[in-house]
């Protein structure tokens, strides 16, 4: 299991290869990547991601440990960036490996659902003309936790 909270970009291919190569006897590897997008087509200039150093790592570790215990996983990876990101840049990725795909898919969804609402990250959209808006948490994201 590896958790990385970092400002630097990550290489999706290299991370996925290394993750898949590091697990034995896993018939399924699932990866998910989150990318900065212009949600309202409103001229997004950048996304600033703030986090709570210390708590972020603890929260992500706890979430990943819970996933490892709920599903039969060979390994799990979470990478999440912070700082200023341009549209199109990758924000984060999760990867899970398991004997069978159901465990890998479900655990990846669980990681994403919890990471969105329980890991201390906050996004701010920097728009054209100097406007800046904090992204509001969505009820649908909070509701997503109930299915687990």
């Amino acid at each position, binding site marked *: 299991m590896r958790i990385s909270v970092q400002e630097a970009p990550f290489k999706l291919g290299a991370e996925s290869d290394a993750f898949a190569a590091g697990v034995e006897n896993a018939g399924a590897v699932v990866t998910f990547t989150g990318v900065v997008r212009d949600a309202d087509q409103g001229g997004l200039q950048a996304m600033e991601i703030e986090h709570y150093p210390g*708590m972020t790592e603890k929260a992500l570790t706890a979430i990943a440990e819970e996933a490892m215990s709920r599903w039969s996983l060979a390994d799990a990876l979470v990478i999440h960036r912070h700082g200023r990101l341009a549209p199109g840049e990758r924000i984060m990725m999760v990867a899970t490996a398991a004997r069978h795909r159901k465990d890998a898919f479900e655990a990846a969804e669980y990681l994403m659902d919890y*990471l969105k609402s*329980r*890991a*201390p990250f*906050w996004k701010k959209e920097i728009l054209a003309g100097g406007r800046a808006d904090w992204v509001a948490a969505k009820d649908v994201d909070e509701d997503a936790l109930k299915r687990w």
Partner: protein
Amino acid sequence: MDILYFAWVRERIGLPRERVETTAATVADLVEELRGREDRYAAAFADLSALRVALDQELSEFDAPLDGVREVAFFPPMTGG
């Protein structure tokens, strides 16, 4: 204890962290104390349903006791991923 603020709470109050001497028994008591300080605190803590609190880096509740707590953090609901 150390009090940390994140995202718009930090912006509204105008600082990321501060050291506070308090005898507040619970988080809610501490919030009441902070609200009474200045308008910017009253504005930041106007609606507690829009806020979350962490005690020593664990998510907690506003009625939680502050006994032995060293670090309190206030922030809006999280938006990771």
